[in-house]
């Protein structure tokens, strides 16, 4: 791991602004900073919170928002909550899978993009909803899911 990333982890874990600092708040801070939880971060949290690495792993693996390898450049989230489901999310999800060449959630084989299912993105009034790199887009049809994804794929920064 490079020094810059280590420094980001250190800052995320040790410079939290709120007064209640916990294992979970530290992990969320790391996720915000670098997008994943490497073992170095688990170590840093265990030192900061004075708990075992097992205690940290226990929390990290409970919440499905944490991932343990570096994120891809393009994160596509599609909602499968009941508002979106009623408004046609299943077809949107299929279209997103197709546009990314995936048959389930996860990373594309080339490591460029990630598909995630979400239980509710919070904009149910505009169902079906998807999010590209955390930016919400509502009233999505299969067609514009496909076009938004291919647009994002071409404009994503190269590694």
């Amino acid at each position, binding site marked *: 791991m490079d020094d810059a990333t280590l420094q980001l982890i250190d800052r995320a874990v040790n410079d939290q602004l709120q007064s209640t600092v916990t294992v979970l708040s530290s992990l969320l801070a790391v996720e915000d900073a670098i997008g994943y939880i490497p073992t170095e971060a688990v170590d840093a949290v265990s030192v900061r919170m004075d708990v075992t690495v097992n205690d940290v792993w226990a929390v990290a693996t409970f919440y499905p928002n*944490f991932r343990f390898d570096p994120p891809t450049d393009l994160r596509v989230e599609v909602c499968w909550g009941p508002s979106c489901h009623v408004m046609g999310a299943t077809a949107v999800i299929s279209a997103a899978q197709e546009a990314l060449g995936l048959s389930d959630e996860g990373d594309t084989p080339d490591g460029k993009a990630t598909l995630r299912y979400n239980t509710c993105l919070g904009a149910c009034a*505009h169902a079906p909803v998807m999010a590209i790199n955390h930016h919400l887009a509502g009233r999505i049809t299969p067609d514009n899911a496909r076009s938004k994804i291919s647009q994002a794929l071409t404009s994503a920064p190269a590694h």
Partner: protein
Amino acid sequence: MTAQTESPFTDILGEARRRWENLTTGDRPWIRVGTGLAGEAAGGFEVLAAVNSALERQQVAANVSEVGTLGLCFAEPLLDVQMPNGSRVFYSQVTPELAERIVREHVAGGNPLVEHAIGYLGEPTQGPAGISNLQDHPMMALQQRIALRNAGNIDPSDLYQYIANGGYSALNKALTEMSPGDTLGEVRTSGLRGRGGAAFPAGVKWGFLAGNPDPNKYILCNCEEGDPGAFNDRGILESDPATVVEGITIAGYACNANRGYIFIRHGHNQPIDRTRAVIQQAYDLGLLGQNILGTDFSFDVEVALTGDSYVSGEETALMEAIEGKRSMPRFRPPFPAQVGVFGKPSNINNVKTLAYVPEIVARGGDWFASIGTPPDPDNRINGSSGTAILCLSGDIKYTGLIEVPLGMTLRQVLFDMAGGVPNGKSMKLLQTGGPLGGVLSASDANLDLVLDFDVFRAAGAILGSGGIIVADEDTCVVDLTRNLIAFCQYESCGKCFPCRMGMSHLLEVLERISNLEGTEEDLALMRNIGENMQAGSLCGHGQLGFNPVSSALRYFGHEFDAHIREKRHTGDCPDQVFSPRLTRR
């Protein structure tokens, strides 16, 4: 309490009013753009960027604010222009191109774009020619906005705007004119029932905590809001977080507590950032921290975040999450008022519950109690006071966030206000109160149900947190039930066997039925699993987790029969069965 000749609040209020005056009657137009979650999904940030660049390019001076949601989510992106001393003219479904035109013709030129306006609000009572009063829009006309009084109207990140519109007068009143006991008494009198699901009387719950002599006590505000289809808690925090911050502070005073947490799921930036912004300003103005407004009362509040976990909204799981652990419910007793977060006595309320508190204290408990439905002990109806804050989504003409008096019928809400189902289709069912609330058929009898916690419970549904998802005639009940159970499976925390295994098993059976491979025995099997979950689960997730199936069978048993006996589909649902699974490790 220190005797004070003049409360420091007078100065704060003076400054707030001066700023508000300047904003609304100064020489600059004021442009407000909705950038809540629904606004964002509709393109609100693109509109905001277009407004700012148009102002710059066209060299027009104006104030621009991001606001939360006015509740007319269907109309987002929503932008309004208030000319000095004029009324607010609202534009709906604004595109960046339209925003540019609005800046040129209305903001700079003084001529509203009548054909794009959805309505006007405020003084003067006569709006620009050709534009109707937004208050007459069906989604607005029947509302009574208490918790949502400021939503969409003020900059949620600016505490002065909240104060200029009456904010913090309730805390000032409580601290200077009322004892903690009086304050608690007002909340008792109001009959306020918790809006987080169980509808437990808030005053009674506060009384448990107030009676505990421990010097360190906590008030927890629950904005986990993991129920899909519910966005009112985040809607309040992204639109007017200060009412919740004031509410939790008043709760602290009434219960003699000294710390508060506002608990929000990570990743929802508008509610999180805006709540943090007003908390910081409240500290700066002496409305939080040591010796609030120069009195003996001290109270601290911070935002605590959780990871993705629906069950972390359960009150004891929430305490685990605040402590930074896996959010699995605890055994009760001990109850939170004895042993809560960090081992200290705690009281948990939903965002909406606390959002009402400032108005209850300012206007009196009797005023709040006069709104809503009366008790009817013969039918086990305890009475539901105040308003319902509803999230309308799905197959409905006007989607959004509305606040209406309890006692209104579902029919009034769904047809008179929200315009019914679009495209000439009929309404088939409602999914209310989050996935655990199950489904309610849109029969005449059910549409006549009044909004009341106990009336809903008697009908086998949950009013709970206020989410209402409308489904039209094309919706397949078997498929929707499978979707709801998939959610319950995905979110089971895994602590108890009947819930963890039961949800997985139910999902398997429902998938089988959806694929026309179900058998007669499957119905009995599901009921058996449901009974075990209800009897053997620690928290409401497992106890209520069979509701989606039992309610669907009650109202739509014939559709299950068609799938099982006649091997026939009953709706137009996608042939692919999609249910993500998760086992929390």
